[in-house]
């Protein structure tokens, strides 16, 4: 029998998931304020040994290359060496990877999220529509599916089976089994966690972007997911390209007939590296 999920059930159940990392909402809230962001970022990083270790390891490899081996052992020095933007990216990715592991997210699911995050960042740069939220939107675009798999694994598996056996779209199948689709669940979670409206919209509209195209991040996240599958970045048998919004491509000014080799190459190289580092 089909479920009929309500918004209140989505939020109530989410409370029994691992806590959403506060550093993510803090970073997103202070993106425009470098001073505030640096202080709060360093503070958060210093209280998290996993993030600190990852940042110091990357900073030290840069130091070995540039300064004859003098080692970096504090976060502020690491910021000056590898830059605030990179530290922010590492912190977001490590925090969300930790959250995903805490939710028992399957590795293929996390790798797909990383791939979409990287596609979103690179597409933003390529089309001159860079967004500070691109990485987070990509990493969280399928968070609704994570919730479904976590609380209703049987129904989630039935949806997966129906997708591989038929030609119906994922959202239609999910609505049949759950009463709502993963985009709706993701939007509820993102609003509950206080994520920026652009990220909420990107999560909600990533499969059917046209009504949300007033926000560039919606177009970026939609095309990023299509591209991640088209480039077979995770190598999964389930990678499938079925629909892509022409309006979203137009909004970003993408002309697929131009030489996309450098864009695709960057995406492949970065994804391979990131999936190894943030596994």
């Amino acid at each position, binding site marked *: 029998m089909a479920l009929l999920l309500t918004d209140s059930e989505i939020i109530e159940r989410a409370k029994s998931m691992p806590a959403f990392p506060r550093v993510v909402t803090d970073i997103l809230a202070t993106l425009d304020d470098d001073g505030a962001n640096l202080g709060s970022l360093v503070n958060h990083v210093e209280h998290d040994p996993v993030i600190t270790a990852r940042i110091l390891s990357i900073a030290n490899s840069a130091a070995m290359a540039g300064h004859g081996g003098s080692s970096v052992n504090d976060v502020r020095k690491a910021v000056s060496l590898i830059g605030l933007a990179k530290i922010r990216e590492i912190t977001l990715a490590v925090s969300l990877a930790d959250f995903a592991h805490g939710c028992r997210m399957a590795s293929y699911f996390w790798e797909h999220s990383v791939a979409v995050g990287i596609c979103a960042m690179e597409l933003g740069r390529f089309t001159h529509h860079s967004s500070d939220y691109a990485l987070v939107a990509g990493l969280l675009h399928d968070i609704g599916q994570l919730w479904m798999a976590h609380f209703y694994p049987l129904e989630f598996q039935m949806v997966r089976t129906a997708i591989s056996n038929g030609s119906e779209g994922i959202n239609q199948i999910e609505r049949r089994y759950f009463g709502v689709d993963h985009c709706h669940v993701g939007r509820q979670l993102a609003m509950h966690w206080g994520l920026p409206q652009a990220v909420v919209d990107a999560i909600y509209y990533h499969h059917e972007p046209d009504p949300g195209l007033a926000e560039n991040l919606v177009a970026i996240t939609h095309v990023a997911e299509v591209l991640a599958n088209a480039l077979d970045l995770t190598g999964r048998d389930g990678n499938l*390209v079925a629909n892509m*919004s022409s309006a979203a491509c137009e909004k970003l000014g993408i002309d*697929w007939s131009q030489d996309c080799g450098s864009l695709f190459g960057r995406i492949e190289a970065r994804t391979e590296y990131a999936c190894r580092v943030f596994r």
Partner: protein
Amino acid sequence: MVLGAALILTEKGVINFNLPAGHELTESNLQQMRVRHAEFVCVQEVDQRSDAERAEAWAQAEARLQRIFRAADLRQPTMAGLYEAVRAFRRT
């Protein structure tokens, strides 16, 4: 190692390191790239496969691409454009 494509590194939108395609990388270049946080480069590699091996690899890549796009409407220009772009990339 010889660069297969130009390497352009930027910081805050300003180019701070630039090497042309065909440039042979030196140890000093690699060190400068690390300092500027280069994440990857495109390098030339000699393709030592036979014609038959290359043809077989291409057939596999094309079959995989067709499987991924099996539900796509390739009469739609945007979708056809993406398909051809990925196909061209796999061909290189």
